[in-house]
């Protein structure tokens, strides 16, 4: 890519070809079918639907007039397989192979949409055909997932058509590195990987650090064991991450980036790798981008299954091909990161926000969200909730809106008990705090954390002692063993919880758990240990009665734990 003009030309021509996805009928094409190819829909056999659709298209001789595009997760996984048919933007759900023929012959060929395959708001008489009219989507705000109904993740032209790489072009031709950092600072963007540190400040520190070369790293380790936001971004819109990283490269003076993705995400790796190749071929990675003299390229590094490698110092060591053990900070990665050089490390979702901020400006971005948490957040909603899947909402949306409006409430008329955020580092938020606006600070005040975006809804049948034990089980498995507070302390906590849930709990156990938790938090070497007691502390804080019941009455009202008398 030599200039903004050249990019604009690609955009123009591709956009014309994609008018059909904006609702404009085309003279040569009858339809574009965006079929969700996320893991959820794959498991509900969307590929069989694709095959059936291809067959139906061939049978009717219109295969060359209809495109079928496999996208990343579209969000409402439990309704899968889902698809959007353009130009009408009709949203279909729970598709079976036999429905494919109906879509082709009735909808695409005769223009009759198929009500029985559409989504109907609970209680509504009529189904809602158009995807953007569906209440579930209308309440969301998409920045990170801006492309997920629109583009083919394997097409760089599609990405460009929706303003892709325009932010990089702007950053390289119209902005100075300091301006870029200033813009990111002003946007108020905070890291989406969990801790919520100011992204602009992090870039500023790295830009100012002495040492060369510098590096840009993307954390795609996604350790929270009940969440897949980052995976959805990498699978559905890999170029947004590449573009964000290249912009940072310019801002801090780095020419090399790494994306660290876990080996368990083969499709994300494949899509990202393909996107990198396309970007290189189009001169959007490599030498002298946009004729600015700026060089940048990215390599993929594969994480081989260790939760602790999501922690930044561990991740950086793992990139070097070693055992991913954390080390004490300081020095922070801004001064000593990969190969001991100044490094910016950000989360996948953080990266995907960058192009939008640069393109539309910090003020537009900062207008969304709350005072101290700007923009949107992607959450993976799961557990005992009707609409499971991926959502993106403005910061400050209340938990009630998320769980009951977008999430559709709790199945089988059960009562809501709590929502768990932040995974093994986070905590539970009970019903009395449902009206809390979701942002970094208010969740922190409740003893939970924003975390990376996992949100597990728990109903009245969930035993909170069991949940606490589940997370500690995970921690005991994943502790790297380097420091004893974490290695020995969490094991001890796990034993006590195990006893409580087996009916062998004693008076004083709760206090002992609290005491151990305080020590571990204060003395563990890395974030894994320092936050590991949180799920226990927060369940004790809000559900102490359940612990007491297990200990005193040897009873689990939820009938989850098997207590021996």
């Amino acid at each position, binding site marked *: 890519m030599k200039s903004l003009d050249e990019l604009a030309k690609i955009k123009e021509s591709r956009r014309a070809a994609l008018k059909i996805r904006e609702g404009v009928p085309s003279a040569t094409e009858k339809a574009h079918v965006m079929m969700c190819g996320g893991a959820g829909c*794959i498991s509900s056999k969307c590929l069989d639907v694709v095959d059936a659709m291809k067959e139906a298209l061939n049978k009717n001789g219109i295969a060359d007039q209809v495109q079928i595009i496999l996208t990343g*997760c579209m969000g409402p996984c439990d309704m899968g397989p889902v698809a959007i048919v353009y130009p009408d933007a009709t949203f279909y759900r729970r598709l079976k192979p036999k429905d494919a023929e109906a879509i082709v012959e009735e909808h695409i060929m005769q223009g009759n949409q198929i009500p029985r395959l559409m989504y109907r708001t609970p209680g509504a008489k009529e189904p809602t055909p158009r995807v953007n009219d569906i209440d579930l989507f209308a309440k969301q705000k998409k920045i990170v997932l801006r492309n997920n109904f629109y583009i083919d993740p394997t097409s760089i032209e599609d990405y460009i058509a929706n303003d892709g790489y325009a932010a990089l072009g702007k950053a390289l031709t119209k902005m100075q590195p300091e301006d870029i950092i200033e813009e990111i600072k002003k946007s108020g963007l905070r890291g989406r990987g969990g801790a919520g540190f100011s992204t602009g400040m992090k870039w500023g520190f790295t830009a100012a650090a002495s040492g060369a070369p510098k590096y840009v790293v993307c954390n795609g380790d996604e350790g929270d064991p009940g*969440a897949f936001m980052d995976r959805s971004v990498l699978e559905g819109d890999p170029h947004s991450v590449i573009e964000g990283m290249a912009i940072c490269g310019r801002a801090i003076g780095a020419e090399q980036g790494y994306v660290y993705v876990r080996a368990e995400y083969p499709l994300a790796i494949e899509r990202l790798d393909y996107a990198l190749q396309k970007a290189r071929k189009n001169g959007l990675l490599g030498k002298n981008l946009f004729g600015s003299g700026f060089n940048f390229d990215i390599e993929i590094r594969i994480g081989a299954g260790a939760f602790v490698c999501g922690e930044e110092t561990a991740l950086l060591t*793992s990139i070097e091909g070693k055992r991913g053990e954390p080390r004490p900070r300081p020095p922070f990665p801004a001064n000593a990161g990969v190969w001991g050089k100044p490094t910016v490390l950000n989360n996948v979702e953080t990266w995907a926000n960058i192009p939008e901020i640069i393109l539309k400006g910090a003020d537009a971005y900062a207008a969304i969200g709350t005072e101290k948490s700007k923009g949107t957040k992607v959450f993976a909603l*799961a557990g005992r909730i009707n609409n499971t899947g991926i959502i993106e909402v403005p910061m400050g949306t209340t938990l009630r809106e998320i769980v009951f409006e977008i999430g559709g409430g709790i199945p089988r008329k059960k009562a809501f008990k709590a929502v768990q955020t932040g995974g093994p580092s986070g905590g539970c938020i009970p019903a009395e705090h449902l009206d809390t606006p979701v942002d970094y600070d208010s969740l922190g005040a409740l003893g939970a954390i924003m975390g990376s975006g996992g949100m597990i809804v728990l109903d009245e049948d969930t035993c909170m002692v069991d949940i606490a034990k589940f997370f500690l089980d995970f921690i005991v498995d994943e502790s790297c063993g380097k420091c004893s507070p974490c290695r020995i302390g969490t094991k001890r906590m796990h034993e006590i919880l195990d006893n409580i849930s087996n009916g062998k709990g004693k008076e004083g156990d709760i206090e002992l758990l609290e005491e151990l938790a305080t020590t571990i938090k204060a003395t563990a070497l890395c974030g894994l240990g320092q936050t590991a007691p949180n799920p226990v502390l927060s369940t004790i804080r809000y559900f102490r009665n359940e612990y007491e019941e297990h200990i005193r009455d040897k009873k689990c009202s939820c009938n989850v734990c098997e207590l021996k008398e």
Partner: protein
Amino acid sequence: MVACASNASNDELIKQLDKIIDPYRGNPGGLIQVLTKAQNLVGYLPKWVQIQIAEGLGVSLQEVYGVITFYTFFSLIPRGRHKISVCAGTACYVKGTKMVTTTIKDLLDLKPGQTTPDSRFTLEIVRCIGACGLAPAMIIDGKDVHGRLEPELIPAVLEQYA
């Protein structure tokens, strides 16, 4: 994915492994990439593979071993033709991971980390496979996702893998 090369002769494997090592020769930073690809080729990481990699990249055998044992993705022992990865992420846990593992244990007499005597299945536990919306879920051979599992459905799923 696992068994693809097991028929090839050892010489052939050594050659293919060399090809994997080539881009990283003398570069210890490539260790994890090389191990990942080597495991895809051979199915696991026996001693001869470790030695060849250690020599190729210029790291000690001890370091190679240390890395292999640190990451759960790597295996020192042969695995079955099919890998069942049961999700024990939070969403699946609250919806019935225990049921899935118990059912598999009853059907195949197989516990996490084990391989059936006929080398048909290896069972492992993983965290979140991205199908939380269809919890409880499992993934077979790293690609086939099976969701909304119930005890009655599992035998039919397993039958698809000979």
